């Protein structure tokens, strides 16, 4: 319920902001005054740091009441959830061998919102600094930009999983796809084998290097009835863009991995997230 409350709160705020924008744009176009005609397109709303001495930047969105505890497992590159409260876990984390695991972007997202107590092997708390360090380091399958994209969509209520990582392995004893948490040698389904887990991550990371571009996330529409055991097809796949717009070649490479699922691209500029489509079309010949 904490998760639902927080989603509603966020929606309300963004809707309020959107209606404010609409009202401003709706002013008489004839009045070419500075106020109406020049409302900056998508300009951020900046907090005024000169007014109050201690401008709180901590989030209004907090849910300590439903904080889970998770322990970092280096071999898996993920955190094993020790106890989870609330309903966040229904749409976050993957299940392996009966246990729930959060990957780094999920850890970062939850920790920023006060919904995760993150522990190391000895049971000591791991702070934000190390969490950001793990994401910024890029060694656990998620870049800083990808984390921004994940956060942005997650805050809007979308359900996001890593590309080609099944939510749960219960129904698939032999899995042929590679994923970051497990590499299945034939019939072995044990998750606890550190080797298998570690190889899985390495293999995925290596693949990332070879191909260059590939989808990063599978995104599902907000859905209170979402079930990890049968998530259905994602609404779209999301691929992260880098410092230059993609070439036609790169576009075709990654499209070939999409299996017909719609593809969107995400460009992050100083933390500001934009989504683009580069759809192949065929303009009709006109009579």
């Amino acid at each position, binding site marked *: 319920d904490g998760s639902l409350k927080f989603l509603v709160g966020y929606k309300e705020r963004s809707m309020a902001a959107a209606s404010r924008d609409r009202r401003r744009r709706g002013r008489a176009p004839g009045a070419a005054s500075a106020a109406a005609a020049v409302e900056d397109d998508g300009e951020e709303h900046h907090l005024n740091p000169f007014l109050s001495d*201690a401008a709180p930047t901590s989030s209004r969105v907090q849910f300590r009441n439903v904080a889970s505890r998770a322990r970092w497992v280096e071999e898996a590159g993920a955190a094993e959830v020790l106890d989870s409260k609330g309903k966040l876990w229904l749409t976050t984390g993957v299940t392996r061998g009966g246990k729930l695991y959060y990957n780094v972007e999920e850890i970062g997202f939850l920790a*920023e919102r006060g919904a995760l107590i993150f522990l190391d092997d000895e049971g000591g708390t791991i702070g934000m600094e190390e969490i950001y360090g793990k994401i910024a380091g890029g060694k656990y399958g998620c870049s800083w930009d990808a984390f921004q994209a994940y956060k942005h969509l997650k805050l809007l209520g979308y359900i996001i999983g890593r590309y080609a990582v099944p939510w749960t392995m219960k129904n698939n004893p032999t899995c042929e796809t590679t994923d970051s948490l497990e590499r299945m040698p034939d019939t072995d389904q044990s998750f606890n084998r550190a080797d298998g887990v570690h190889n899985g991550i390495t293999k995925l990371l290596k693949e990332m290097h070879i191909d260059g571009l590939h989808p990063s996330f599978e995104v599902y529409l907000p859905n209170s009835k979402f079930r990890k055991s049968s998530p259905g097809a994602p609404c779209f796949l999301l691929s992260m863009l880098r410092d230059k717009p993609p070439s036609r070649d790169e576009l075709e490479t990654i499209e070939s991995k999409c299996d017909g699922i719609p593809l969107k691209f995400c460009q992050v500029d100083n933390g500001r997230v934009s989504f683009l489509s580069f759809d192949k079309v065929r303009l009709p010949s006109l009579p």
Partner: protein
Amino acid sequence: AESSLLLPRAGGRRNARGENNAGAWTPRAPPPTRPVLRSSPIGGSFLALARLRCRCRFLSAPPQLMDMSGPRWKKGKDGKDFAALAAAQPMSSNVTKLQSSLKGSKLVATLCSGGGDAVLGVNPQQAALLNRAAFGRALENAGAEKQWFQLGAEEVFYLHHALECIVVESASKDLMSQGELWDHLCSASESFPEMYKAYSHLRSKNWVVRSGLQYGTDFVAYRHHPALVHSEFAVVVVPEGSGFGGRCSRLKVWSDLLCALRASGSVAKTLLVLTISSNVCELGSPDCLEQLVVHERTVTRWIAQQCREQRCKPCREEAYKEEEDHTGETVVSNYWGVILGLTVLSSLLVYKLRFRR
């Protein structure tokens, strides 16, 4: 023949003043034609209206020009704009305070692998200083002891190199020297040298510089903190000289230049082109920065139609856009003309109806 004056036309018939339509002279291609009210009494009166409006044009309020002479300050809750607040807290003092506060604390920013961004953790006092000096973007955090900021590549280097108030470590936690940081940022983005030169040029003049990507430009420049004022300039950086290699640079074709001009005008900013010229071939170290020269130019559009009155200020793209949209509707482009015209027309209609009976 008379009613042809109602149709805006390029070339074609013009009266003595060079106007082909009531008040407007345009050399552009004719817009889609409108149904002509020929030789009906209403049409005739419409013509009278047009002539009347033509005379009225110079009596009524002139078309509103964009005021380009000053910054657009935002307004506080009391309805007063922030100009006074900004004057009391000049950006130079905010930056100096930030610099002196951070210098002693040996803050370490962590670079993000694969890009030029960095993450920086600060205490609440330092966070307030960073915010006031308009560096970085605060990350949302649920009451952790530290406040976290995301810094862009130019900001990282400026805080490190120009203000000397942070140190930077790589994603793998190795402290980086200035040269190593320069190399890293240049490899993350090919255009970093010229972007940084432009950034530091504006910052050293105490302008606040932010990414302008959402507006299709490289930067936007604010006269003070973005919370207090709208940005005045949309900045495009153009490298020039052999030192920059064969980089694709902007504004080399008309479609690009006019696109940038249109985009910046539609958000009420002046297009500022910073040409960074280099006659040295070596961009491999921050020492090259001293050799780079920054040339400042603005690109603005002058609307011939709108500047015939006494005040002949250059107009923002906004005005040009309106002009274009209204080409086919010049009959109704004037507020007073419309009101007067409607009054005249309705009274004529009433008269006609009474006459018919």
